[in-house]
Structure formats: structure tokens, C-alpha cells
């Protein structure tokens, strides 16, 4: 459980646009242990997807990783060339996307697409690859996988397609599975099926999962640790129970309060005033400052550090700077 698998240090990914450099991810650091489920939560535009794409070096142009280190088993992925990265993608780290409709090739049967990745990663025997594809489809819940391998993506429902995506991602037994909003396009009952499947597969394969989502309900049900992102930065990191019982950052608190809960009643919902700033108008100090009810003068001026507190809780806020801050 505690063996360190992946460590991201000070990752900075920018997009070069007509109006200059837009930092989508700005100095994000975290670690992932083997067998862990880490959730990265945030609203649209907070940089959570770009973070995950950066890990696989799949940032589309005009984006570029300009600083930081991504250490996978002690080796920096940013120093690897394309060929080495291709070996790592799929075999060591693989990914599933939000939209299963567009992530599968519509002109090939699904079995072919699963075998493809096996053959690419060195499986010579076609019969073996086929057997493995059938095994994978059975694993993700197809009742007749022998028949299912010849289905085309268009013959499957959204939930089934997402299962195929998961099967493809897991065929080469990766150490890390990155799931980018895997259930956002699905209905609740199907979402529940997929989440349960992911949990089961994690037990069976022992893969660590990075779960990117905006849904705090999913996070609570599946994650061990949570990183909350806001405007390209990590603002809070904590074990899941700690985060829900004792959220520190005002943004996290606001988020948790603003979701209507099925098991509680409220007259009006708490809401965070204003909206998420775009990369070109990030405030100078704390990026949450204009929307924060506790914001003081210092928050406007200086950027708060990402401090570590007890129980592995990390937070980026001047409220929790501890003794030093009071003296200064």
C-alpha cells in the first residue's frame, strides 16, 4: 500500500495562445502509492484533465509541459523519448476517457481493438491475444465474451462501451489507471455499475487509480485520497474521510456545502459567489481570494504556500499557515 509508484513535482503545463501563455496547470505536486485510489476534483477549467494528460505526455499542441518532474518508479517520464513513452502508455500507465463514443474506432470490432494494444505491446501469438481479449471482456461483465469480440462499437450502449474502454485499458495489466470523468456521460444506474466494476477490478488487479471527476459523491464512494484543484493549482490534499469531515480550504468547504444532498434538507443552498477565473485573469495573490469570504489583505498580495499539516493534510491558504504566519 505504501510503496511509492508515481510522484509529480511542480508540474507546470501551459498553452501558447494568441493572447500569450496560459498556465492550465501551475505547480501541481502529488504522489500516488501502489493500490491507491487518488481522486482529483475540481470544476471545469481547473486543470484536472490537463494534469492527467500531462502524466502520459499527451498534451495536444499548443500546450506544453514547461516545468516539473513526473517520477514513475523513480524515473522521470518527461526525460523519456516518444518510443519509450509508447511502451509506458498502456503497459504501465493507461487511461480511460469521458466519452466512450468517440474513444473507440467505429470501423473495427471491439475484440480487434483490444488485441491491437496487446500485439503492439509485444504479444506475437494471435490466438493468445484473442483469448486474452475474451478474458478481459468477461472480466468487465460481458456475459458472452466470445460473441462480444466481434461486436462493433455502434452495437453497444454507452455503459457497455465504457466497459470495453476499461477492458482495453487493463489488458496489458498497467500499474496505474487514469480515469478521466469515466461516468459523466452515463446515467446514474449505469454509473453505479461502472463504479462498482472499477472497485472490483482494482481489488483483482491491484492497479492504482487516478480518478478525475467533478462529482464529490463519486469521490466519497471510491477514493482513498483526494486532491482538490482550483484555477490550475492544488488547493487541498487529504485522505478522503479527513477531507469530508474536516475540510480546511474555503473553496473545498464551499464546494461541499453547495451540493444538494439526498440525505439532508436545506432551504437555500450555500453558494460560492462569482465564478472561476480564466487563466488570463488569475489574481496575483491567492487565486481563490476574490470569491473567498475569509479573504484578507494578505491574500490579495501574496500567494499562500502549500503547507503540510497533521495526518497528511495539505492546504494552500493563509488561514492555516500556523505559528510562523502569526509572527510575521
Amino acid at each position, binding site marked *: 500500500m505504501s510503496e511509492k509508484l508515481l510522484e509529480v513535482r511542480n508540474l507546470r503545463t501551459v498553452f501558447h495562445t494568441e493572447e500569450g501563455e496560459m498556465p492550465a496547470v501551475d505547480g501541481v505536486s502529488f504522489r500516488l502509492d501502489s493500490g491507491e485510489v487518488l481522486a482529483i476534483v475540481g*470544476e*471545469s477549467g481547473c486543470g484536472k484533465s490537463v494534469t492527467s494528460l500531462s502524466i502520459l505526455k499527451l498534451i495536444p499542441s499548443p500546450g506544453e509541459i514547461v516545468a516539473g518532474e513526473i517520477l514513475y518508479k523513480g524515473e522521470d517520464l518527461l526525460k523519456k523519448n516518444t518510443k519509450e513513452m509508447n511502451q509506458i502508455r498502456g503497459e504501465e500507465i493507461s487511461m480511460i476517457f469521458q466519452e466512450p463514443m468517440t474513444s473507440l474506432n467505429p470501423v473495427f470490432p471491439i475484440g480487434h481493438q483490444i488485441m491491437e494494444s496487446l500485439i503492439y505491446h509485444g504479444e506475437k501469438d494471435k490466438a493468445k491475444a484473442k483469448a486474452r481479449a475474451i478474458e478481459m471482456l468477461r472480466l468487465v461483465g460481458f456475459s458472452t465474451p466470445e460473441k462480444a469480440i466481434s461486436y462493433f462499437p455502434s452495437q453497444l*450502449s454507452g*455503459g*457497455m462501451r465504457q466497459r470495453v474502454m476499461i477492458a482495453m485499458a487493463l489488458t496489458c495489466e498497467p500499474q496505474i489507471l487514469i480515469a478521466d470523468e469515466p461516468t459523466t456521460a452515463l*446515467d*446514474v*444506474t*449505469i*454509473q*453505479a*455499475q461502472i*463504479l*462498482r466494476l472499477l472497485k472490483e477490478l482494482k481489488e483483482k488487479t491491484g492497479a492504482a487509480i487516478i480518478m478525475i471527476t*467533478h*462529482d*464529490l*459523491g*463519486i*469521490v*466519497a*464512494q*471510491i477514493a482513498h485520497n483526494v486532491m482538490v484543484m482550483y484555477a490550475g493549482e492544488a488547493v487541498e490534499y487529504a485522505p*478522503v*474521510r479527513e477531507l*469530508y469531515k474536516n475540510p480546511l480550504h474555503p473553496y473545498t468547504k*464551499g*464546494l*461541499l456545502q*453547495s*451540493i*444538494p*444532498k*439526498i*440525505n439532508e434538507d*436545506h432551504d*437555500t*443552498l*450555500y*453558494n*460560492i*459567489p462569482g*465564478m*472561476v477565473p480564466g487563466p488570463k485573469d488569475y489574481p496575483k495573490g491567492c487565486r481563490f481570494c476574490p470569491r473567498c469570504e475569509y479573504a484578507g489583505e494578505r491574500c490579495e498580495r501574496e500567494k499562500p504556500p502549500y503547507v503540510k499539516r497533521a495526518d497528511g493534510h495539505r492546504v494552500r491558504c493563509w488561514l492555516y499557515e500556523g505559528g510562523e504566519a502569526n509572527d510575521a
Partner: protein
Amino acid sequence: MRDQALLKVENLKVYYPVKKKSITSVRQYVRAADGVSFEVYEGEVFGLVGESGCGKSTTGKAIVRLIKPTEGNILFEGKDIFHKSDKKAYRDFNKQIQLIFQDPYSSLDPQFTVGRIIAEPLVVNGMTDAGQRKERVLELMKEVGLRPDHYDKYPHEFSGGQRQRIGVARSLALNPRLLVCDEPVSALDVSIQAQILNLMKELQLAHQLTYIFISHNLSVVKHICDRIAVMYLGHIVEIAGKEELFSHPSHPYTKALLEAIPIPDPDAACMQETLEGDVPSPINPPEGCCFHTRCRYACDECKKKVPELHEVAPGHFSACHLHQNQNKNGGNHGNQTNRSGK
């Protein structure tokens, strides 16, 4: 308040023809809504919940007359909204019933300024004086939380939440009495979603509005609605008051839906028993009870006979043979029958 229904939907059926595969084959239909009936009372928030393809949006669009029903009636204050004989009344329904759209991006004309977008319903409905119109638009903008300097801006200069505010202002322009809200917050981020939900609640109180709130998100529905109808494959399977529905769900599908919601609390028990399988195609829906293919309690009767909505508790209706039979055998509480069903 409960005396007369503001809106009454009676046996609404909307079928879309499917393209024939060959000339000889029988024409098939997508049964988007297949016998939907409910009543909405003045001043309440009525929720329509269900997964994609259950017909909730189709029902909503029929109420604002964007879709013509294949069968059935929609009565607003007792008058058929599709009846064309009285021209004035027919036009008047436009002012009384309005829609708030799901997608704040495609629901605003990109070539129009905010002021013109909100003024458009007024222009069409005979407010000719430009000064008066502008005054009204600014008043509406203030009400939904937009600044006067937004008047001359274009929609693409706004974020999703603000665009949704523009949409709300437009739908309020004609002082409607009934607002059909088609997934108004599902395209928005959580923090913005809360802002819009609060705004809608405030507006409802300020103008004594009646809402039909369509959503797939049960938590949101629970927050805002008074009475809720659960839909599945074009049918309403359960209608009940909010408290009753969430504390004593009666239909197996409602229970499964409630079970499937991930609760934002790591210690809460949920998602234990998930439904198997997918929603069947609405082109050839299963015979009998539409839910029997996925229902844990399905029996032979469910495969043959379509269950009717019947009262399991005061004001709580459910369409399931399980309770119907229990009731006949002397059980009279929906909730008890539930447990015996397990």
C-alpha cells in the same frame, strides 16, 4: 390550492416514426412518451425525474407545444393548449407557459446582444414602445442578477452560469405562470449550479411561479421540488410528495435510482445493490411492465400486464403489480408491501 390543477396532462403519447428498413417492413415508432398523465397545481414545483431516454424532456417540450402529441391532451386551467379554434387563447398560452433550456450555449442566439435576447419575447408579443421595453429588460436583468452594463454584450462574452441567467430572464419576460425547466443546471459546475438553484427558488417565491422541473439528478430534484414523478421508458412509474418519495420509495425502479446515487459522505452506505443491464430500446419496449427486464421482483404477471398507477399511500401513486396484489390481499400500506416484497 389543491382545488383545481393548473396543468393537467392526460394520457400523453408522443411517438416518433423510425425510418423503415425496407418498404415492406412495418413502420416502427420510438415511444418517447407512452401514456403519461399527471397534474400540476398552482404554486408548486413538480419534478420529472428519470434517466436519458425516459421521455421527460419530450413531455416538457409537449407542454410548451414544441412537439405535437400523437395522442392525449394537455389542459392548462382546463383549456386544451393544442385547440386552435380560439386564436387569442391559443396565443395566450405562449405568455403563460415558458421553458428554460438545458444548454446555456445553444439556447442564446449568438448574433443578438443580451438586451435584444431578453426583449425578443416582448417585441413579438406586442410591446412596441422601445423605451418601455428597455426598462422592462433592465428590470428583468436586475432580478436575475445581471448588471445593467451587460445589456449591450454578446452571449459569448459570458460564462455558463451567467448565460443561464440570461435564459431565465428571457423566459420571465412575459410574466408566465408556469415554467418548464428542462435540466436547467445539469450543464453547470456545482458552485454555479447552487447559484442558479437559489435564484430559481427566489424567483418562484417572488412571482408565485409554478415550475415543472425536469432533471436526471435526484439530489437537485429533492432540493427544489415539492412533488416528484419518476419516469422510465415513457411511463410514469411513481408519483409522490418529496418527503414520501425519498423516505418510502415504493416502485423498485425508484428504489434502484435512489440506491445508485453516490452520496458525498465516505461513510454513507450506497451503491450496494446496483441494477443490472441497460434500459431497453424505446422502439420495441418490453411488453407488460416496462421495467420487468431489470426488476428483481418481476413475476409472470409483470411480463404480460401493464401496471396502472394506483394509490399506495395518500397522494403517493405507484405503478407496480407487487403492491397492487398486496393491496388486494388486504395490505394497505405501500411501505409495508415493499418490505414484504424483499
